[in-house]
């Protein structure tokens, strides 16, 4: 049995789709710029298999990049954050580098690594790494001394202190970094696929754009957006699970 909220949402969605179809069919918007839902469905029927394979490639690249970016970002972030001198020295540098449009590095990666999945994964890692590392560093640095004093007084080993006290305390900050960084990983991979690639959703989007197959282009975009939105939802869920910590801001303060 569906709740009334779900029904309401579905009705709104159906209305939007219908309006969308109408707007294109009635010629209100050029069909080359905006594909009608029926055009998208047609493209899916025609080349669904190809798109699915590309989808799989993109997911694989994104997955690998997320894994590496998380590990490197958190790992380095914890290490640098724990060493105050290092943190003070590197944090400003890292945040300045953030201003560089990373996309200009992609042609370099193309020259070095070719246009296969590897260059996409590396670029994805680069995109996500900085916000994750920076936020983790901030999170670790912000840990109040009294927790570390407590850890020592209660006889925690170095490893125990890191895993059971430092890590959970830094988690809220880490999570903001992970949210931003993971989003950037997804964008990074898809955009570089669009620029130059052998496969993947981005590649198909670009390819069909040059042929003015707007239906295919929009199909690709829908799939790409689906990935982005799913990742976002996943991260929100993670955020909420760990949200317990947030309450401490109001309490332990």
């Amino acid at each position, binding site marked *: 049995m569906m709740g009334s909220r779900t029904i309401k949402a579905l009705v709104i969605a159906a209305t939007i789709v219908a309006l969308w179809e109408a707007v294109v069919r009635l010629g209100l918007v050029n069909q080359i710029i905006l594909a009608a839902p029926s055009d998208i469905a047609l493209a899916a029927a025609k080349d669904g298999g190809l798109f699915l394979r590309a989808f799989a490639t993109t997911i694989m690249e994104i997955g690998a990049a997320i894994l590496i970016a998380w590990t490197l970002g958190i790992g380095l972030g914890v290490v640098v954050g724990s060493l105050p001198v290092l943190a003070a020295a590197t944090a400003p540098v890292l945040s300045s580098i953030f201003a560089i449009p990373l996309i200009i590095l992609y042609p370099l990666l193309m020259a070095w690594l070719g246009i296969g999945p590897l260059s996409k994964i590396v670029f994805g890692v680069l995109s996500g790494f900085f916000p994750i590392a920076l936020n983790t560093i901030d999170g670790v640095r912000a840990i109040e001394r009294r927790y570390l004093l407590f850890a020592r*007084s*209660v*006889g925690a080993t170095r490893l125990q202190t890191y895993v059971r006290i430092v890590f*959970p305390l830094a988690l809220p900050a880490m999570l903001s970094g992970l949210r931003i960084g993971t989003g950037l990983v997804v964008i990074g991979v898809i955009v570089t696929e669009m620029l130059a690639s052998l496969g993947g959703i981005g590649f198909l989007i670009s390819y069909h754009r040059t042929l003015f197959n707007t239906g295919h282009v929009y199909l690709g975009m829908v799939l790409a957006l689906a990935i982005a939105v799913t990742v976002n939802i996943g991260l929100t869920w993670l955020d909420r699970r760990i949200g*317990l910590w947030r*309450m*401490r801001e109001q309490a*332990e303060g």
Partner: protein
Amino acid sequence: MPIIEVSKLGKDFSSGRVLVRALADVSFSVEEGRFVTLVGPSGCGKSTLLQILAGLIAATSGEVRIEGERICAPMPNKISMVFQDPTLLPWKTALANVEFPLDLRGVERTARRKRCSALLELVGLNEFANHYPHELSGGMRQRVAIARGLAPDPRLILMDEPFAALDEQTRTRMGHDLLDIWEKTGKTVFFITHSLAEAIYLSDFVLVMSPRPGRIIKTIAIDFPRPRELDIIGSEAFGRIRNRIWHLISESPA
């Protein structure tokens, strides 16, 4: 053998080119099972002394022995500390917080749970075992911290102004309950406070410390019978001791 023996303890801090002498020639001893309080003006080095006793920082000169052993690192099995800020782990329940020291040590779960539930009951919080720190009041959090301090069954409990952040009524009640817990568990307590009334009410002995560089001016024995009721605070004898300590502190050369 006294549980704490401090002889000619000195501590210097160097910040840049300036040398700060925090403690100079501190000597005293504490017998087992006693409740001893250290009072002194702000900045006299009370917290520094406590941290040395806990093994968190090293002395510059002199000797500190806990149960005859020289202390150079924290001894979590023998010594527990309760800080002014309860410093509970926000993502753990009250019970989990109390269990934490034992958890670190790898104590088996059922034994751990049993012991720590009993401790929470001792401090009057057994109904709140599954509550999180942010759901508890300041006084309750401090009780959890005390229970946590008792978890490893230490010989000595060091307390650094644990009730300073609480309002007066809660503070008084906590003091009374702490005495109750102390009498039931028989631990040695070394307590630091600014409040002379608190010190006199709680302790067997009050160590009076001078302003920086801190040294023990006098040890005052408190002879009120135990268990102590809160109404002794208003008595004449209490007032006299209090005045005495106050004069000792204010007349001591800075």
